[in-house]
């Protein structure tokens, strides 16, 4: 009996399941289309974003955006979904990854759509040049930036006053003034500075600065000294040029001759930015959106970066933006949602990549704790510079980070001793992608 019933039962379940699924898939043609948005937003950022999405969804009759947040392994998830044909319609991308996705045909070319659009976010002349450039590939627009974040020098103003430095002068600093202040700020438990006799680098109570391999990017110092780590035509990595070496040697000197920064092990245990918040570190380079100014114990402000020997204050731009998946079922509606959401995020994230929104008043309105930093953030936008990117940049960056930056920052290799060898390795990668 059971044997006779079992196949019928299974078949029945199959058919009912299929009918159920099929019935559920039927859609009302007039109903708003679901547009999926992939983000790397963490919990609090996702909640803020959801409020924006709720407003947009209430207003729109053509779409409703659903958020798919995956803070961990975001790009692995994204690549896998694109490969499997199940990617979200809209996706957050940063400058490093946009080129890869665009060059490999995963993104919708927005050039023509944007040209005929009078949406505020579609006015390409209204963007800063650097962030917009990084969302174009081969002369075509594949996305729009929604944040253009310069690196700022966060300073514990109380510590500065303690060593007799007027905070108002920090924006005028050159490398040598930065170094002098760093030496004066670094103290061992006996109160000695790195230039005092008997200074104990193994028993430092307060560090002047904080640095790990990869952050802040060593490229900034190379640029400020007039050097290049990767030429614009992507033909060379002249890290062994005199100018490039000047930048890298400056970092070596600060870290290994003056011991102004804690080791990576200490940073790993006490927290990179946490040491700044706790007053164990006096200066920190972070993105303009970091909230280090929110501190009950110390007055912390963001300043522009010190100028290098050429007078340059070039700083590393981190640019986040959004693009549309090429395989979307609803390109027009996805584009409409993309534009509305881009505009909304431009009014949320600071600093905005749009010239009209990137002003001190907007920053203070959105983030009141940045009242003393806002003008400096705007000034820093003038010095923004993004790396020269190409498909395969991640392979190049791995070698640059592991073979050049790590030995300098974490080890004690002199840049001049290793630069030529590393240059050959880097140019080997460039050769492959040329």
């Amino acid at each position, binding site marked *: 009996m059971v044997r006779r019933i*079992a*196949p019928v039962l*299974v*078949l029945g*379940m*199959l058919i009912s*399941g*299929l009918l*159920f*699924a099929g019935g*559920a898939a039927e859609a009302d043609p007039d109903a708003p289309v679901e547009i999926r948005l992939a983000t790397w937003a963490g919990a609090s950022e996702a909640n803020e974003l959801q409020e924006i999405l709720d407003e947009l969804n209430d207003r729109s009759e053509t779409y409703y955006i659903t958020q798919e947040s995956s803070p961990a*392994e975001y790009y*692995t998830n994204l*690549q*896998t979904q*694109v*490969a499997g044909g199940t990617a979200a319609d809209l996706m957050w991308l940063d400058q490093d990854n946009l080129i*890869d*996705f665009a060059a*490999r*045909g*995963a993104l919708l070319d927005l050039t023509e759509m944007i040209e005929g659009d009078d949406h505020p976010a579609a006015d390409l002349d209204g963007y800063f040049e650097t962030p917009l450039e990084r969302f174009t590939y081969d002369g075509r627009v594949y996305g729009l930036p929604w944040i253009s974040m310069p690196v700022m020098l966060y300073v514990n103003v109380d510590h500065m006053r303690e060593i007799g430095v007027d905070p108002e002068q920090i924006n005028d600093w050159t490398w040598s003034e930065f170094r002098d202040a760093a030496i004066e700020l670094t103290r061992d438990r006996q109160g000695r500075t790195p230039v005092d006799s008997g200074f104990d680098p*193994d028993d430092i109570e307060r560090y002047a600065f904080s640095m790990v391999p990869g952050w802040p990017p060593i490229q900034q110092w190379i640029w400020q000294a007039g050097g290049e780590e990767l030429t614009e035509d992507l033909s060379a990595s002249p890290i062994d040029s005199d100018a490039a070496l000047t930048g890298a040697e400056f970092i070596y000197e600060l870290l290994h001759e003056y011991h102004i920064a804690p*080791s*990576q*092990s*200490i940073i*790993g*245990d006490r927290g990179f930015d946490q040491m700044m918040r706790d007053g164990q570190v006096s200066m920190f380079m972070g993105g303009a959106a970091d909230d280090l100014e929110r501190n009950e114990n110390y007055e912390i402000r963001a300043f522009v970066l010190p100028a290098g020997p050429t007078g340059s204050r070039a700083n590393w731009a981190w640019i986040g933006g959004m693009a549309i998946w090429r395989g979307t079922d609803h390109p027009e509606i996805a584009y409409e949602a993309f534009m509305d959401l881009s505009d909304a995020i431009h009014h949320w994230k600071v600093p905005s990549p749009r010239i009209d929104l990137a002003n001190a008043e907007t920053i203070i309105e959105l983030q009141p704790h940045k009242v003393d930093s806002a003008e400096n953030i705007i000034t820093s936008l003038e010095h923004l510079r993004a790396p020269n990117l190409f498909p*395969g940049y*991640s*392979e190049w960056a*791995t*070698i640059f980070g*592991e*073979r050049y930056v*790590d*030995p300098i920052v*974490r*080890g004690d290799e002199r840049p001049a001793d290793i630069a030529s060898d590393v240059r050959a*390795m880097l140019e*080997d990668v460039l050769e492959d992608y040329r």
Partner: protein
Amino acid sequence: MQPHLATAIRFVIVLAGVSGLMVLVHRGLRLLNVRREAATGYALITPWLVGFLVFTSFPMIASAYLSFTDYNILQPPNWVGLENFRRIFTRDIDFWPAIRLTLLYAFLSVPIGVAGALVVAMLLANDLRGIGIYRTVYYLPTVLPEVAVALLWRWIFNPQAGLLNRFVVPVFRLFGLSRPDWFGDPTYVLPAFVIISLWGITGVNMVIFLAALKNVPLHLYEVAFIDGAGGWKRFRHITVPMISPVIFLQVVRGIIGALQIFTVYAFTNPTPRAGKFMSFYIYQTGFQQFRMGYASALAWILFAIILVLTLMVLRSSEMWVYYEGERK
């Protein structure tokens, strides 16, 4: 439709499909005059078989194919023949250091791990009062997540505040050596991971040895004792031969595990100047640089190394593994 409802429906469909397949397998085999008992057996292992084919065999075959291609996930694979392998062996600046580090780690950690687990198991094999508590305590490390263990070791190895350096630094100073930076100085990275591997002494390895020790017949020890054999001789000539199949198992498991070390490396973030373990290098190439074809080639090379070493141990086992009741 609510996402959870869609998932529930898909689950029901898959369940129904697999159940249907089981019935079909049973019916088909019966039509082929296969015995009822055998047909039922095959029908019952069908879900596992389907899972194995879909989630293990297919990815393995796919990765074998991908190792001969240039594949970045976003575009279809592009056949490049042996180019990935040629590049790995002739131009890859990370490959040989990764092989060196991985093999050295395996050669150092496996003997220490096996011997250590055996020693701990022998201690716990004694029938003392409260031995159950000791056995439980020694097994506890196994239930900790590997990530938590990695973070714990990161703290233990901290150059300034770590537990290990409190004991080690005075000794190092006697020899004029500076405070070791275990994960920052390439000299200490391999020793650090070998020390971490001692964690594996407890837990499953220990329990397997304990079970093996408990299965050694007592009368063998009694006879040896009467014949005047001391503790070392009893261990050398009775314990080791009798548990040699388990030692063999532990060596094979240890080699495979050591060559695949990943989590602890990823979470302790040692300097890459010491080289990278192969599994991490494969992950970095595939999932950070999105060079899946190249990563597949690296994975197959690692597989070949594991296979060769395992076969070598297997071949050598004829000389040192004793199976009770074995006939040659």
